[in-house]
């Protein structure tokens, strides 16, 4: 400890100061108690995270910007008609027959249905 701690003069001063602190009135002690409880209440609260505010604002700004410029950046998609190609179409294309045969298929079916006339 410091050299002045052994000095009886400073020891007496310290005792007097202790005495004044010990003899505080009830109203003052109540105020001190309230102040301590308020501070401890703050200790139980989650610590504010001020560093999150810039991050949150930056994220919100980026999202707003993305929403605003999205229609200008992405080209409009051309609607693609639904596929009409069936498996039998591939058979037709891959076959040796002339395409004209398939175009006149109804005619050939009618001709086939006619009775043989000699």
């Amino acid at each position, binding site marked *: *400890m*410091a050299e*002045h701690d052994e000095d*009886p*003069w*400073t020891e*007496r*001063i*310290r005792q*007097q*100061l*202790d*005495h*004044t*602190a*010990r003899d*505080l009135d009830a109203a*003052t002690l109540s*105020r*001190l108690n*309230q*102040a*301590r409880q*308020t*501070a*401890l*209440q*703050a*200790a*139980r*609260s*989650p*610590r*504010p*995270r001020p560093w*999150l*505010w810039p991050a*949150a604002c930056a*994220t*919100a700004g980026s999202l707003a910007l993305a929403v605003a410029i999205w229609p200008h950046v992405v080209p409009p998609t051309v609607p693609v008609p639904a596929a009409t190609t069936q498996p039998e179409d591939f058979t037709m294309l891959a076959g040796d027959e002339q395409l004209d045969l398939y175009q006149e298929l109804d005619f050939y079916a009618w001709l086939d249905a006619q009775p043989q006339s000699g």
Partner: protein
Amino acid sequence: MTLTLAMHWMDSDRPATPRAGTPAARNHDALEAFLRGIERRALRMAELSVGGREDALDIVQDCMLAFVRNYRDKPAADWAPLFHRVLDSRVLDFHRRHQVRSRWLGWIDRLVGRDEVDEDPLANIADAHAPQPWQAVADGETAKALDAALRALPNRQRQAFLLRVWEGLDVADTARAMACSEGSVKTHLSRAMTALRAQLEHHHG
């Protein structure tokens, strides 16, 4: 929606009660014991610096809140110098505000010519019969004498004396609390001791 929830989470004031036995509960108990142990001395120190009990109570309340918010997770061994650092800062803020207010009020008084009406020239003359600190001691009013002697000290000297002699901080911690060098602490303390001895010693023996 999400942003709102995040903001609420960042600013939530709802206290979470620490469960008994957890590190948070132990920290809470240690913090309460520390504040309970220091609050009366802190109040007296603030009172000696600012003069009034009400102002001192406001300063201590503000100091406790700022200390808990900023330093509660620091090692307990550092709490005392940190607490006094906050207290010193709050006392300085008070004096700055008081100075600015006095300047404005003085300016307004001069503007409306209130000086001549309110000022009593006799008020500034020292009362030869008023008890000096050492006389108060002789009358048995040692606490008042000590108060008067401490209030008469310059702020830094009083602070160095109270932190070293009453609060029991070592030179290094006192220097941290006062935001100055250890050499300055020794100088302020030495001057404070000399001034106080000159006023009180022959009554304290």
